[in-house]
């Protein structure tokens, strides 16, 4: 089984994140780059599926991002992935979700896959649409928000998290699966894994290598545009409810106005 995990480098949520004033894209120099948290769960799930299949599966990491994203690729390889493909090109800078899905789908088509696994959203853009877009572009089954994945032969079953519990969804491979944090507990890479990661093959693909039309990606090819942005306003002082035996009622009334209850 050929498993590809899509892994994104995102700015560390523990640091202050900024957009650039010139082209309104993420300021990657302002924050440390880390592996997108949910993608760590995706890597772990891919490794678990590989382990369940004995030696007859390979896990390939696919990352689209600037040169600095090699740190994130190394992390996924240190966890145990076998090899990586780094899709990197200045022409990709500023791609939105739609053009990213196009570029990633082109790369995936070139790599070949039975199963694509990715986190259900990234902590930076948080669009949460990439899995659906990839499945559509690739013409394969879409199994999103998975909290459990089982593969048997060419059939795949997932438990898809919903507001009311979960759906059990089944499909035939190939498929795209996005995972939520309930699915597993990602392993910490061992030093042996870290050392081994340096020797694992990482193929670098440019836009041309992957057969991507340069005018359909990047800022020029984006279908959406950041019109303007502003820093989040500082948190206000809050409302203090003073109770004279009716504190509970007043609090409940407040929550009703905010539609929490």
């Amino acid at each position: 089984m050929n498993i590809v995990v899509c892994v994104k480098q995102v700015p560390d949520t523990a640091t202050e994140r900024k957009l650039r004033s010139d082209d309104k894209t993420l300021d990657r120099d302002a924050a440390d780059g880390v592996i997108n948290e949910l993608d760590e769960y995706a890597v772990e799930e891919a490794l678990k599926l590989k382990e369940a299949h004995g030696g007859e599966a390979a896990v390939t990491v696919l990352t689209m991002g600037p040169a600095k994203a090699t740190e994130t690729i190394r992390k996924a390889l240190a966890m145990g992935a076998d090899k990586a493909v780094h899709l990197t090109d200045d022409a990709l800078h500023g791609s939105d979700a739609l053009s990213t899905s196009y570029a990633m789908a082109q790369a995936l088509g070139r790599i070949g896959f039975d199963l694509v696994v990715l986190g259900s959203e990234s902590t930076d853009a948080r669009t949460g649409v990439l899995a659906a877009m990839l499945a559509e572009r690739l013409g394969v089954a879409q199994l999103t928000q998975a909290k459990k994945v089982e593969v048997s032969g060419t059939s795949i079953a997932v438990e898809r998290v919903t507001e009311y519990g979960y759906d059990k969804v089944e499909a035939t491979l190939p498929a795209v699966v996005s995972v939520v944090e309930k699915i597993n507990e990602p392993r910490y890479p061992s030093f042996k894994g870290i050392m081994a990661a340096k020797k694992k093959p990482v193929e670098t693909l440019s836009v041309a290598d992957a057969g991507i039309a340069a005018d359909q990606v990047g800022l020029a090819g984006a279908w959406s545009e950041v019109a303007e942005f502003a820093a989040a306003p500082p948190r206000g002082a809050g409302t203090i409810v003073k109770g004279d035996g009716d504190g509970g009622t007043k609090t409940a009334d407040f929550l009703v106005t905010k539609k929490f209850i």
Partner: protein
Amino acid sequence: MKLSDEYEDLRKTVEAFARDVVAPVIGDYYEREEFPYDIVRQMGAMGLFGLPIPEEHGGMGGDYFALCLALEELARVDSSVSITLEAAVSLGAMPIYRFGDDDQRARWLPRLAAGEMLGAFGLTEPGGGSDVPGGMRTKAHLDGDEWVINGTKAFITNSGTDITGVVAVAAITGTTEAGRPEISTILVPSGTPGFTVSKKYSKVGWSASDTRELSFADCRVPAGNLLGERGRGYAQFLQTLDEGRIAIAALSVGLAQGCVDESLRYVRERRAFGHPIGHYQAIQFKIADMEARAHTARLAYYHAAEKMLAGEPFKKEAAIAKLVSSNAAMDNAREATQIFGGYGFMNEFPVGRFYRDAKILEIGEGTSEVQRMLIARELGLSAL
């Protein structure tokens, strides 16, 4: 000084582990004086106990500096787990790796390197610490094909956990030609009749680590349990302790840095006289000094480790690193506690723990006075 990619990746991995796994729960273990088996198991799964041990013995194939980086990152959050790792690897596994024969290595190293079993080193005694061999009282003699050990060892880390498997015991095994005590190291498996592990000490700090007194009363082990050559015990633990000083220096730097981390967070939140207290120079200067101490102490242990790995003499550098880093830990813990005010005196705040954990760093693995002795001796000064 820039770390190579693999060292930096290891450092970041342990940093994340300490933050996400250790930090949320260690305060409770500390309060209960309970050994954190679950954390140790996870550290084992990450391969931390095998960092400097070659892969053919079940280790990670890294080196001693990799271990030091892990110790520093753990100690930024908590010293109990860091000293547990330090003692298990530096004092438990490494002597067996360095001085053991093939059978001893095969028997003990794979489980020690995996963290499934902990080893300990019994050197210090109730009446003797740095004054070996003169202060040592534990004796062993050959009776047929068995060693018979009698004596008591004090303050032995990792010696009484549920997963402790073996203790290397230093004992007087005779008299040298020069008329001095001959010291040898003998491996004593846990549970050997005549080997008694007392209950845990009640300690000022390191409360989630396992420290006990051990006694040996006609304790018999096979002659083959001798570690390395007979009479080489003194040389063995001098080498073990020289390395261990670098490891304790790394742990001390971690504690010193942890004080900076905690203080930086706190002074941005805590307000007094109309501003966050980090606004005031009195606080800024304290933190600047703390950062400078942690930074310079880190350079000192990096340098000592570099010399050690290059195979150069490093006794003086290790002693300097241990001396300045334990000083830095103590000073930073005192200042961080001062910055936190009343909260710093509460056990539930990490800096309160750091304060309690810092003092032993000026004592264990050679006191600060012993480090100064070693440095002076390396400079050519001895009893004039």
